């Protein structure tokens, strides 16, 4: 399977101010952007927040190309949303909604482009630790996030490959020829990933909980 992008940027090694900022402030910024999308009612404020987030992304040294790529990947979805909202609620509301979605995407990209995945997973483990008395395994939480981050581009890639195969057979207009193979590939991938994780002893209970 060929390489496939993801809607948020991969980690880009660096030593910028954003890279050196601890995980929690960056995480809070992402959470605040998500919350703000429900609170901001003026598209001009959304535009300003979007500009700030883009500025942070560029300040990190991750580059304009990665920023454009992150936005480009969600462009078809936000375009459809924007057109629908424009038709239903008018231009300013459509602009606000589209900009708020882009703010969230760029904020998440700032976090993932400047934080190594292992640090993100350590953060998830720390967040889940208070739930340990309730039977939660923090490492499993982290592993779930890791598998999710890995699976989304795989599924996108599977769709792309299946679409090419369907085109080669002249079946590109047949939805069954697209959906069914992607579904089967995804289930097979899930099984293989499960086997691979089990074989590596990942996702098994903590030492404290294990009888072995």
């Amino acid at each position: 399977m060929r390489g496939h992008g993801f809607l948020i940027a991969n980690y880009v090694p660096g030593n910028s101010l954003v890279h050196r900022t601890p995980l929690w402030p960056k995480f809070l910024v992402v959470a605040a952007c998500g919350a703000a999308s429900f609170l901001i009612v003026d598209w001009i404020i959304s535009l300003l927040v979007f500009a700030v987030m883009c500025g942070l992304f560029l300040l990190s040294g991750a580059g304009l190309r990665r920023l454009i790529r992150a936005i480009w990947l969600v462009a078809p979805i936000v375009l459809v949303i924007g057109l629908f909202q424009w038709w239903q609620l008018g231009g300013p509301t459509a602009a606000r909604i589209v900009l708020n979605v882009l703010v969230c995407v760029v904020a998440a990209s700032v976090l993932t482009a400047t934080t190594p995945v292992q640090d993100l997973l350590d953060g998830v483990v720390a967040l889940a630790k208070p739930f340990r008395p309730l039977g939660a395994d923090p490492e499993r939480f982290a592993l779930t996030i890791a598998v999710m981050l890995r699976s989304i581009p795989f599924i996108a890639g599977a769709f792309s490959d299946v679409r090419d195969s369907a085109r080669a057979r002249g079946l590109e207009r047949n939805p069954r020829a697209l959906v069914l193979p992607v579904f089967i590939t995804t289930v097979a991938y899930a099984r293989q990933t499960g086997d691979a994780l089990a074989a590596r002893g990942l996702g098994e209970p903590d030492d404290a909980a294990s009888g072995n």
Partner: protein
Amino acid sequence: MNSISFSRVSVRVAVDGSDTPKTLLHDFSLDLVERRIGVIGANGSGKSTLLRLLNGLVQPGGGTVVVHGDDTVTAVRRVRSNVGFVFTDPLSQLVMPTGREDVELSLRRSIKNSKERAARAEAVLGRFGLLDLADQSIYELSGGERQLLALAAVLAVNPKVLVLDEPSTLLDLRNRELLRRTVAGLDQQVIMSTHDLDLALDMDRVLVVESGRIVFDGDAAAGVARYRALCAAALDELPMGKAPQ
């Protein structure tokens, strides 16, 4: 203690619409003590099932499998920490976006300190000559580089036994040779299924599996000769003159 023992092991699976389970591996017993063991046989013969018994991915329907003193049913967690498993397709095995992150993922359970973990991952990647590729997307790597990376991620936790399930199937000649040399230099006991008969000839002992039975157990050259004979006999039975239906 440093051996793998199969004692009257069989594997069966339920079949939809049938009361009779299908037997994937018929009753067999083996002791594996050699450093390099090859498993060869046709597709669907039971090679992968045999390998999967070694770290509890498949549980025996009857009998016991004991790896370096640990039963694969009652002590599966300890068995998995001692038995590293490399799959045919490294893309299904590599969980993280880059090699460095995947090796660090392997080390998460054993090393809690992130700096120590990063240093250990660096050392493992360096040992396999993968440092230049460590931060590249796994999709940007060649098949051989991915397979080597999957091997590094498994060996990062220093297992006692390494199981490889047809590791060279997706590799070109150069990458196959790279894998062969890498495996030859490992300290671990290696058990490998393969269709690459040159690779099989490197082994200290070869098992030939046919229709769920171990039909040969002995030295590599004789094992490969037996497998070739089985293939020739199977081809002779085909109605070669007929067009495919």
